[in-house]
C-alpha cells in the first residue's frame, strides 16, 4: 500500500509510521525532514512550502513504483509532505517504509527522500528574521 499526501497540517511521525505497520513486517524505517533555525548564519523564522499538487502526487507515486521494482520485499510506503508555513523544529516531510527485514526498508527510505528532493514539484521559501526571503533549490 502507498499512502501519499500533501497536507497543510502538522505532521505526526507516529501517525505516518503506523500507516505502514503490518503483521508480516519486522522493520519500519522512517525519515523526518525538519525546519532548521539557520542557514549560512542567517536566522530562519519559518519555511513556506508550495506544491504543484496533482503533479507532485504523480511524481510521488512514481517513486513508490520505483521502490517496488528495486526492493520487491517492501510492503508499504507512506510519504506525507506538509505545505504552507512550517515553523522551526517542525517536520516538513515524513516518509515511512515497512518490510519483513530491515535492509529493504532502510535502503528504500533513503532512496525515497533522495528522489523526493530531485523529482517532486514542491518548493520552499526560507523566511529569515532580518533579510529578504529566498526560494531554495535542492542542488545535491
Amino acid at each position, binding site marked *: 500500500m502507498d499512502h501519499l499526501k500533501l497536507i497543510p497540517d502538522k505532521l505526526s511521525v507516529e501517525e505516518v509510521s503506523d500507516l505502514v505497520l503490518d503483521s508480516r513486517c519486522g522493520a519500519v524505517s522512517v525519515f523526518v*525532514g525538519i525546519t532548521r533555525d539557520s542557514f549560512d548564519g542567517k536566522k530562519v523564522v519559518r519555511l513556506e*512550502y*508550495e*506544491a*504543484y499538487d*496533482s*503533479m*507532485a502526487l*504523480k511524481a510521488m507515486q512514481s517513486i513508490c513504483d520505483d521502490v517496488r521494482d528495486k526492493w520487491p520485499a517492501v510492503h508499504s510506503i507512506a510519504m506525507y*509532505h506538509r505545505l504552507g508555513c512550517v515553523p522551526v523544529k517542525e517536520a*516538513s*516531510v515524513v516518509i515511512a517504509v515497512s518490510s519483513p527485514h530491515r535492509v529493504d526498508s532502510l535502503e528504500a527510505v533513503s532512496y525515497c*527522500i533522495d528522489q*523526493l*528532493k*530531485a*523529482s*517532486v*514539484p*514542491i*518548493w*520552499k*521559501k526560507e523566511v529569515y528574521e532580518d533579510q529578504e526571503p529566498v*526560494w*531554495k*533549490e*535542492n*542542488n545535491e
Partner: protein
Amino acid sequence: IEHGVPVKLIFFAQSRELAGVRQTTINLPTKIAYQQLLNLIANRYNLESIKNNILLAKNEEVISDNCDIELRESDNIAVIPPLSGG
C-alpha cells in the same frame, strides 16, 4: 497569436511571484517549439531573470526542451522553477 487554442498557464514559487499571478489562460498555436514557448512566457510574464532555470510541464509531465509541443484546448502548461521539496 491568431487561430490559437486557449491553454491554462500555471506558475509556481518564484515564477508565481515574478509573474504576479498563479494561473491564467493564454492563446497559443496548436504547435510551437519548446524554446519559442519558453521565450514567449518569459517575456510576457516577467521571467527573463530565471528563464535559464525553469522547466515547462504539459499536463503534469515535464516537456523535453528539444521538442515541438502540440497543444489542444484544455491542456495546461506549468512553469517549474528548481525544486526544493523535502
